[in-house]
């Protein structure tokens, strides 16, 4: 059961990787990285159940947090071209990268 889930996760990871490599626009790639992070979280959870130690779930939740913050950081970077002091930045520069 968990083995089937792990194999399904591997297949979807391959699909996401292909989209990340081929994806024509920037948003395809950002979304692909975000989905890959989600798949990582799911895989850590599956790994915990496969080894008979579901306490890996806490770690999986931490990865979900990192994934969320990372995606926000990337998107904020594209919008403002800066991470910290956005008050100095013109807001309409972000679409050029």
């Amino acid at each position, binding site marked *: 059961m968990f083995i089937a889930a792990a194999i399904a996760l591997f297949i979807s990871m391959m699909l996401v990787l292909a989209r990340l*490599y081929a994806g024509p626009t920037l948003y395809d790639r950002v979304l692909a990285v975000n989905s890959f992070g989600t798949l990582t979280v799911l895989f850590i959870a599956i790994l915990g159940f496969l080894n008979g130690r579901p306490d890996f779930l806490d*770690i999986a939740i931490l990865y979900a947090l990192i994934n969320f913050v990372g995606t926000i950081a990337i998107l904020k970077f594209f919008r403002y071209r800066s991470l910290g002091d956005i008050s100095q930045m013109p807001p309409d520069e972000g679409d050029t990268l």
Partner: protein
Amino acid sequence: MIETFINITLFAMQVLTALFIVRSKRLFSVVMLSGVFSLLTALFFVALDAVDVAFTEAAVGAGISTVLMLGTIALTARTQKKTAPTGYLPYLVVAVTGAALVYGTLDMPSFGDPMAPAHQHVAPEYLARSVTDIDVPNVVTAILASYRGYDTLGETAVVFTAGIGVLMLLSGLRRRRDEDDVKIVKNKAAKAKDRA
């Protein structure tokens, strides 16, 4: 059996990602792919039961360094410059180095062998004592955060200092460029006035 399958698949996906990184000419895609590579490495560490190392890898590799690389791209260029074809010498060097490394691993004890010298030195002591000494269920965590606590603290200080340095460098660069932009705009305005 299933562990071997998972390890082999993770390694295969890492190799695939590395090939994509080499093949890709768009630097943005390379940055995203290196983030994925780091996530795969973290997964591999989790599969090896070293969750702290995996977490560091995910936070630094997939989080911080992706953002730093993006900052670099914003300050430099978005696509790779075309380079002259280099011939077969680099492939030869890579192949010979890889073959030497594989030859070097032939002497090593097999993966997970409990009789390996590395597992006979102090590891049994840690395995026996860490539960009563520190009361942390994961031995790797106990070693990393308690037995080598000062070492980890020093590492954290080094990484923190490096992060501060990079952030200061990046913000300084940006401010200078903004000042240049302001100068350019002022020059243009002055020229327009002269013409008028």
